[in-house]
């Protein structure tokens, strides 16, 4: 495991994914759909700010709430809340938490 301690990854809760497929349109470089239409993720850390912004959008777009961004173990909720605040205030995402 050589992932940096503050790396942010996108993860899916397979038990929630219903195969809507929106995420794969929003974040095609990280998410593909398998032959049954369920999201299959590349969970390598996201470093590129633009990819991170799209990852946030994918998390928001999921109707099943199956996607999440996670930082170091146990920080999933915090990352998510920040996203909520950002999207409400229309703040352009900068990927600041990746650097913090």
């Amino acid at each position, binding site marked *: 495991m050589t992932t940096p301690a503050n790396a942010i990854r996108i993860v899916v809760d*397979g*038990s929630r994914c*219903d195969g809507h497929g929106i995420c794969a349109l929003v974040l095609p470089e990280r998410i593909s759909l398998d032959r049954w*239409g369920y999201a299959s993720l590349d969970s390598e850390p996201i470093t590129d700010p633009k990819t991170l912004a799209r990852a946030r959008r994918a998390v928001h777009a999921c109707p099943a709430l199956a996607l999440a961004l996670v930082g170091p173990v146990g920080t999933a909720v915090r990352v998510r809340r920040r996203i909520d605040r950002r999207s409400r205030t229309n703040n352009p995402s900068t990927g600041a938490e990746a650097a913090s």
Partner: protein
Amino acid sequence: MSVISTSDDSVLEIESSAMAPLAEPLFGVAGSPGTRLLAGPARSLGTETLAGHDHRLGIVELDDVTPQALRDTVRASGLLGRGGAGFPMATKLDLAAASPGTPIVVVNASEGEPASRKDHTLLELRPHLILDGAHVAATAVGADEIVVYSHHANRRANAALLRALGERRDAGRANLPVRVINAPDRYVAGETSAVVSYLSGNGALPRRGAQPAAKVGIAGRPTVVNNAETFAHLALIARFGPAWFSQAGTPEAPGSTLITLAGSVAVPGLVVEIVGPVTIGHVLESMGGLDAAPRAVLLGGYGGTWITGEAAWCTPLERHHLGARGLSLGCGLLAVLDDDACGLVETARLLRWLAGQSSGQCGPCVFGLPALAELVDDIAAGTSRRADLRRLREHAASVRGRGACGHPTGAVNLVESALETFTPELAMHLRGEVCDPSGGPAPFPLPHERAVRR
């Protein structure tokens, strides 16, 4: 040559030269000298009573030990969870102790792995060891309740458990309430998050939470869920200390380990405790009654890995070493394929069962496993072509690592290792030359009677 027993009940000396000194035994069954968890009376003598247990091991004094000191002892022992994942016990205890809420301790004795018997056997023969360990864990984290999660089909083990609880009550040793809960019939019901979900009043379904159970578990309380064997080790660590504990095993995975022999062995379901460095071949030879390497061995459970008998024979039966080779000791199952059986047919059978055991939550498992099972069925039936094989490999790769629990990945392990291990058979099956199924060797056990309803 060491002293080992060749059957469940009798201890025999292996007759080598009369001059050979008796070395420390490296493994043994219940009652064999040199064993740790299984030390004490032989299996034929049944459950060890509280009086016998106290006389043999003494009483663990937990009154004047601080939880922190107890956790430090566990940390020093290096004990890893024995359920398959091998998570450090001390880390779990520290997390539970540091998390808000009163912790709860869960002894997972459900042992849903069909051929595995180690937890049943331990609960049946040494219930007080497990209960002692649960009390040690409860003291270490300040828990106020212990739950034993067992399955009703393990009748003898459950009877022994209830008798043991009665003995402790009568002896005035019931310091914490112990609840015994029946685990539902499902392969994945023993998975930690499924256990927590079930004990919180929901279905026994694996969940993928952001928080580990030791932090947020049953009804939000920190929950220490461990396999029964792990607690038994804890009971001995509390008595004899970390230095003694790590004399067995290896520095990376200290302590002894219980394994179950299954399939084409002398006594299927025999539980053997591995104390020192031994090879799989050594154990199969002395405990399984094999005189040569079998065609193949399934290691770690039905979601485990096939390896050829020759490769297995000289492989050390040790968690860390196996892990370095990409194998896993898992629940400790060592299942020997009968030389007359076809590994592909057996794989198809196990895979069909695994597919039926999905809890039905995740797409890749619900759709992926039946698709895999169908493709492997076709191979077993000799109706596949090369293109189907490619499809099977693609399918398998696309299911690996998906889903909320390890179930789909386990099924993929089984399939992929079968394709690797049974290459000659595979070539035959692809040519349409199917094995003769009439040989009828006893296949690996499946709990068909435990039909699953969602």
